[in-house]
């Protein structure tokens, strides 16, 4: 995407943000396809190179700020629901995926939102994602309902199709921008000395870095 290239190689102030993003969603909503599409730009492909799609990383350059994204997939089966807190501890962002043809999966998202807000407060950036918009005809979750719900809980709503590669770049890019903002607010707060120095330790790791040599333009997300 164009925006990802942004400030590009010119920005020498070498800072790399490391973000942890958890991926939550019921079994068959297409979480895996979503990340595979994003990181490998492949869908149901025999040539997928990764051995697994449960932990994926991606390097981004957003407006000259470098971001290392670690995407943590979580087991979506109901029986593992109680393990959620172990997964999303210390995460900067959460992507909550539901299937637009499956009302139940949207209900599940609501549960997770409640839980996340309770456990992590407002520090975490939430994205609610309606996947499989290629199956618009079979839609069971209304757009208005989903969007107004997302707004009411301070989350952003996105529509994606892993199959047709729609909306995925925007989703991750937007999320990264929001996480950078949150991190910057945090930093400023820390600069004022309002938060104890120990608190930052397990949160965002800001690492000084040598300026990365980037071929201008597309950055890492040169999908198309």
């Amino acid at each position, binding site marked *: 995407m164009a925006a990802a290239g942004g400030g590009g190689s010119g920005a020498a102030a070498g800072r790399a943000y490391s973000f942890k993003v958890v991926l939550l969603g019921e079994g068959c909503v297409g*979480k895996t396809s979503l990340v595979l599409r994003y990181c490998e730009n492949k869908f149901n492909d025999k040539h997928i190179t990764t051995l*697994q799609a449960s932990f994926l990383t991606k390097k981004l350059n957003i407006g000259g700020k470098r971001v290392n994204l670690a995407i943590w997939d979580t087991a979506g*089966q109901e029986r593992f629901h109680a393990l959620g807190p172990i997964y999303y501890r210390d995460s900067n962002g959460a992507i909550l995926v539901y299937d637009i043809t499956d009302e139940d999966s949207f209900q599940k998202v609501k549960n997770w939102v409640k839980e996340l807000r309770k456990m992590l407060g407002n520090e975490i950036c939430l994205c609610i994602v309606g996947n499989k918009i290629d199956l618009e005809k079979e839609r069971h979750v209304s757009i208005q309902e989903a969007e107004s719900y997302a707004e009411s809980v301070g989350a952003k709503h996105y529509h994606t199709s892993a199959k047709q590669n729609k909306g995925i770049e925007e989703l991750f890019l937007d999320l990264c921008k929001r996480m950078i903002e949150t991190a910057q607010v945090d930093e400023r707060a820390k600069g004022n000395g309002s938060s104890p120095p120990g608190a930052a330790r397990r949160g965002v790791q800001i690492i000084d870095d040598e300026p990365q040599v980037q071929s201008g333009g597309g950055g890492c997300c040169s999908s198309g």
Partner: protein
Amino acid sequence: MSLKSERRGIHVDQSELLCKKGCGYYGNPAWQGFCSKCWREEYHKARQKQIQEDWELAERLQREEEEAFASSQSSQGAQSLTFSKFEEKKTNEKTRKVTTVKRFFSASSRVGSKKAEIQEAKAPSPSINRQTSIETDRVSKEFIEFLKTFHKTGQEVYKQTKLFLEAMHYKRDLSIEEQSECTQDFYQNVAERMQTRGKVPPEKVEKIMDHIEKYIMTRLYKHVFCPETTDDEKKDLTIQKRIRALHWVTPQMLCVPVNEEIPEVSDMVVKAITDIIEMDSKRVPRDKLACVTRCSKHVFSAIKVTKNEPASADDFLPTLIYIVLKGNPPRLQSNIQYVTRFCNPSRLMTGEDGYYFTNLCCAVAFIEKLDAQSLNLSQEDFDRYMSGQTSPRKQESENWSPDACLGVRQMYKNLDLLSQLNERQERIMSEAKKLEKDLIDWTDGIAKEVQDIVEKCPLEIKPPNQSLAAIDSENVENDKLPPPLQPQVYAG
């Protein structure tokens, strides 16, 4: 000798027999001419001096060693080292009272003023150096070799690490959480210092941090792994028992997407189990993490071979749970706690290793809380399996899980054969009984038939023939026979 000769002489001065100290008592050559009291005083003084000298020697040797290390790195090392030595004394004094390591790094202007205390605090440092085993020696050497490549930064890092280890020596009595906190602070401070002051690029910082972790944790391991002050050991035993009680859980119940009938897959499963068990044998948290990662990679391969697509977390977690259940790794909780407390946090929180480790934590949490519902079983079935009354494998012996090892498989096969044999034997027995009955029936039938025939044609027994009957009465001509001989008696 001289004393003796003098005694033999004619004139012996009185003063020569007296204590050399001149206290008025007589001295004794065995006490080098002192009286007993003065000798004792003198002797103690000498011994004290000897001890002092030994200390100084040890100190000097250590300094030399450090100087050698420093000079091999940079020319201005000596100067900073003397200061470091001084700072070390100062901090030693401080850390005895203060529970945080952060003070190490604050450039305090207050310089150690109480010399006596410094002297005292200095004493235990050689004892720390002494208790190194072969392994820690090897790790230390590697660490120093490694740091040499970083010149000034390396020297700095070495200094800080040494200070930290000494500080930790005094903190052994603190709770494990406090010790963990100190270690974490240390990691963070060292990393920050390298970045801000040393201007070390992040990749190198990461590498150095790995080495620091290896160095300090090899030394601390003995004291901070499964410490007595915690209930880690109890938890280990609880989870171990729990896993044993769950021996009957099948891959089907957990919906594990792995088909162990494929030899390649079962091979991967075995490797994964070996890796997770191996975790306990490592000392350094990072090495333990590496075992978890290797195990996870094997799990992924197994899933990939079975399903022919990259594994998602939905596949991975159940399989990992299954591996943990099958492997029952030793001291699982202790290992998890140890890694959580003492691993470099940047690795644990965001990296790939961290992800797998989190999954392992999830697997353990799941096993602890596992109930009938989480295995899609009815409560009665679950209770029966847990109490060991029945095993799901016995019920469905045809499709028993392929996870059973060769011996168990053979056993089930043999049991199966035995039951078949039993059945056949019973059949033979019943047939034999039938045969016996048939035989009896047959003989009875024959007997009856014979009876009938006998009844139909009864055997007539004719009266005896008259002529034959008169065989005795034929002796009519007995009188014609000569009379029987009579015994005759002869006289004489």
